[in-house]
């Protein structure tokens, strides 16, 4: 009897919250409910990152996903949403074939995950990661880091060009 500690219990609760709200995103009839369920998923995933001793990535997840992408998504939902046809706002087609394909592939992948002989190293105790990540970004990963800033600038300019009004 190895027993489940308090940490395992908390992990189970967080995983359940994450998966249930992801199911809400996938199955909700209303796109607004989907958007708010997405927030539960992002927060749950951030909590999983904390469990994985990735404090910096967890904070980034909350800042960018919950504070940026989710707000942007809600804006887009509200701007393209007609209250009158809320019933058909989140149409799904081919649910049954989709479910069959997803479950079949999921079974294969679950078999692979459970069957593999993972070389699990005993994880060390969590320690602050921010300094190490900063050193890596300005050391070994300097070129990808700079490329990322160029990509972000291009995305920024592209989004502005796409969404502004045409001046005739």
């Amino acid at each position: 009897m190895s027993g489940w500690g308090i940490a395992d219990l908390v992990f189970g609760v967080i995983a359940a919250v994450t998966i249930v709200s992801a199911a809400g995103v996938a199955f909700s009839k209303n796109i607004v409910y989907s958007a708010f369920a997405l927030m539960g998923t992002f927060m749950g995933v951030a909590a999983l990152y904390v469990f994985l001793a990735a404090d910096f990535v967890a904070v980034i997840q909350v800042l960018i996903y919950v504070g940026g992408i989710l707000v942007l998504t809600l804006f887009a939902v509200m701007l393209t949403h007609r209250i009158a046809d809320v019933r058909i706002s989140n149409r799904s087609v081919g649910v049954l074939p989709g479910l069959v394909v997803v479950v079949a592939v999921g079974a294969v992948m679950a078999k692979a995950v459970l069957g593999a002989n993972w070389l699990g190293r005993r994880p060390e105790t969590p320690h602050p990661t921010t300094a190490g990540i900063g050193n890596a970004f300005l050391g070994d990963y300097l070129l990808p880091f700079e490329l990322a800033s160029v990509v972000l600038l291009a995305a920024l300019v592209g989004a502005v060009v796409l969404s502004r009004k045409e001046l005739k």
Partner: protein
Amino acid sequence: MAVGLTHYLLVSLALFLLGWFCVLTRRNAIGILMGVELILNSANINYLAFSRYGSGAYDGQLFAIFVIMLAAAEAAIGLAIILGIYQTFQTIDVEATDTLRG
């Protein structure tokens, strides 16, 4: 049995399948983008889990940060395109946008 690598991989698998189902069946363009976000999150959980139970180096966390950065760029561009589609077609149902179909 304590929580180990397999548990994280299974949570990530569930997230991936739900996101994939979302992408396959949704006909609302924003719904499809939400499915893509779920898939990216599941990939990130895998990166961090293998980083923690693997070498313990920072590489996995750095890749997760790059994925989050690209997801932000993708969301900004994708939602701008969706707003453009809405202004042209007055709907964001992806089956209505078939002007180029032969």
